């Protein structure tokens, strides 16, 4: 009587979370996102009153305050979009690889996208436009394939350690290649910084317009594969038994994830750890159902990246800390916590 009844109760609570509770949590997250977005528009090296924000949104650009709002709005939109994209991408990658340490940054996918763009600019005279995004997505895809292939060779498949190491090694190598390509080219060497540290400060309406279709397609593909990811979580055999075409489902989901992180990286540069931290945090709220996890991750990722950007702007006023640095400082401890918590071998 003392020990037996609580156990099934806990089990049921974990497996079947009340839908209403999850909806409430999602609403709370959306409210937080709105708050963070407002903060992001008003706070910075120059604080602006909400009245001026409204005026600036109406199109007025007279005066410093309104002008800075006009600069901050596309930046905020970019942070929201990139955060959502990276978080969804990370959640899908964790689902596809069934590996809790999967993240576009840790797997080196972001660096691959960066390298592709740098190589494109240096060798083929790409000027930043839609082609850049295609190149970035291609680079991200190629890197993801290579890293996953290396990490899953041999016995035991893609264990977290092998994937993380393959990602760290590939990422270090690709970073060296980026430096090697960019150093001799004085004309692009100055922009190398944006490919070493990710940031959203360069967001403009033009770049957002170009990246938007990719993000929309990626998000739609990922959301559509949520149900398949739930089946895949049971293992390939069970998923096939449930009527899932395993290879197709996995390929489609991975493609969506790669498109998302490649497109985001094309605009922001490499930003790590968002895709790692957010899905893990969201699983605490939603459980493991991907149909809930992906929307949660999108909103929470947007909150995290926008919030990190605000923090980066406020902490070191009047200078700014790039958001890629802030997310690494927040994300690495979470990474370590996940490693410590889990039985690494059994992950």
């Amino acid at each position, binding site marked *: 009587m003392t020990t037996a009844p609580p156990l099934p109760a806990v089990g049921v609570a974990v497996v079947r979370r009340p839908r209403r509770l999850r909806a409430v949590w999602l609403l709370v997250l959306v409210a937080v996102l709105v708050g963070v977005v407002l903060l992001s528009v008003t706070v910075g090296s120059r604080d602006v009153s909400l009245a001026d924000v409204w005026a600036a949104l109406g199109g007025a650009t007279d005066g410093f305050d309104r002008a800075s709002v006009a600069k901050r709005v596309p930046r905020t939109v970019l942070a929201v979009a990139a955060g959502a994209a990276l978080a969804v991408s990370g959640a899908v990658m964790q689902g596809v690889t069934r590996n809790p340490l999967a993240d576009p940054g840790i797997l080196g996918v972001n660096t691959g996208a960066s390298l592709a763009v740098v190589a494109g600019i240096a060798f083929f005279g790409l000027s930043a436009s839609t082609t850049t995004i295609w190149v970035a997505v291609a680079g991200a895809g190629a890197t993801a394939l290579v890293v996953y292939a290396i990490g899953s060779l*041999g016995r035991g498949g893609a264990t977290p350690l092998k994937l993380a190491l393959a990602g760290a090694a*590939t990422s270090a190598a690709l*970073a060296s290649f980026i430096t090697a390509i960019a150093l001799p080219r004085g004309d692009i060497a100055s922009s190398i910084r944006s490919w*070493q540290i990710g940031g959203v400060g360069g967001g403009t309406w033009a770049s957002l317009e170009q990246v938007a279709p990719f993000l929309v397609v990626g998000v739609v593909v990922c959301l559509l594969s949520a149900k398949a990811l739930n089946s895949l979580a049971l293992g390939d055999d069970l998923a096939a038994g449930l009527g899932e075409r395993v290879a197709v489902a996995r390929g489609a989901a991975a493609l969506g994830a790669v498109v998302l992180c490649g497109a985001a990286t094309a605009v922001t540069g490499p930003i790590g750890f968002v895709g790692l931290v957010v899905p893990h945090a969201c699983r605490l709220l939603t459980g493991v159902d991907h149909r809930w996890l992906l929307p949660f991750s999108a909103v929470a990722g947007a909150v995290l990246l926008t919030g990190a950007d605000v923090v980066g702007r406020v902490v070191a006023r009047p200078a700014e800390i*790039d958001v*890629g640095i802030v997310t690494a400082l927040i994300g690495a401890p979470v990474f370590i916590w996940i490693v410590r918590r889990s039985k690494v071998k059994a992950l």
Partner: protein
Amino acid sequence: MDRPPLEGEGPVSAPTDLRASKPVPPRGAGGEPARPGSSRLDAVAASVAAGRARRGRRRRAVVGVLVAALVVVFVLSLMVGRTFYGPGEVLGVVLGQDVPGATFTVGRLRLPRAVLAVAAGLCFGLGGVTFQTMLRNPLASPDIIGISSGASAAAAFAIVTLSLDDGQVSAFAIAAGLAVAVLVYLLSKRGGVAGTRLVLVGIGVAAMLDSLTAYVLSNAAQWDLQEATRWLTGSLNGSSWPQVVPVLVALVVLTPLLLSRSRDLAATQLGDDAASALGVRVDRTRLVVIVAAVGLISFATAACGPIAFVAFLSGPIAARLVGPSGSLLVPSALVGALLVLVADVVGQYALGTRFPVGVVTGVLGAPYLIWLIVRTNRSGGSL
């Protein structure tokens, strides 16, 4: 000669496996099988001795070749450049004579650079193989588990933000390197330190510290690409004697300390229990070895940045060259020095543009790491 207690007894006692665990010497093993047993023992002992002599010759040959190659490349790196100087002129400068033109170019520009390359390479090779041996994992080298990143972040912070001088920078870097080593160790300690967890925790810590370095650099007055490549990938550009001296001092002080523990270090590879049964004070050995290795890595990093992958590569390359014979400390140090020196010469002259040494070793090192993962997987090892 090295670690005789480890190799001597194993093969001999193998035939009498049941009695091997008893402390009874083989000749007391029984009446009638004593004679054939002892002759077999003699044969086995002879083959063991022959094998040990063969491995000893191979080891001496490899070390000799490495030293010779190091000397040749060192002299070459002093001779080659925008202006070529003959061996006579170079020798003159090194001996302190005043050779027109060469005294400045060779004595002030090329010599400190080459000396720093060798010294830093020795440091990275020693420090790297020490960690790999101690943690029994070829992946657990200081540049993967965050120690180089810690020293680098501290050095960049000390120079860019605090504007300290060279000696203080070294002190700062070594303190940070030690702190990171302790931090990674404590964070991965959870009912015993598992190798996999330590590597993963190290990767996380390294990522965080690298972003700290990037932050310090981006906070500098201007984004200086030279400085940035130095602290992110390692570079020997602009080496001067004040930078070289602390590294040399560290080498002179810490290398004998480390070498004096090489036998204990080899014994700890068998595991803590076996090592203490062999008479090794495990905790004290570990403390001394960690302090010495972290010191070497940190001093070198404070001078030229975390030259990518050198600490990671030297040990395994040396192990392949030398084979299974004794301590890897000296061969690995030589391999590290050769790697840095060759990579620096290649980066400066062979590629059209002057690349910092870390870019060259990074491009070289990553394929090796991937090969290591592939090979470990094929052999079914638990990576």
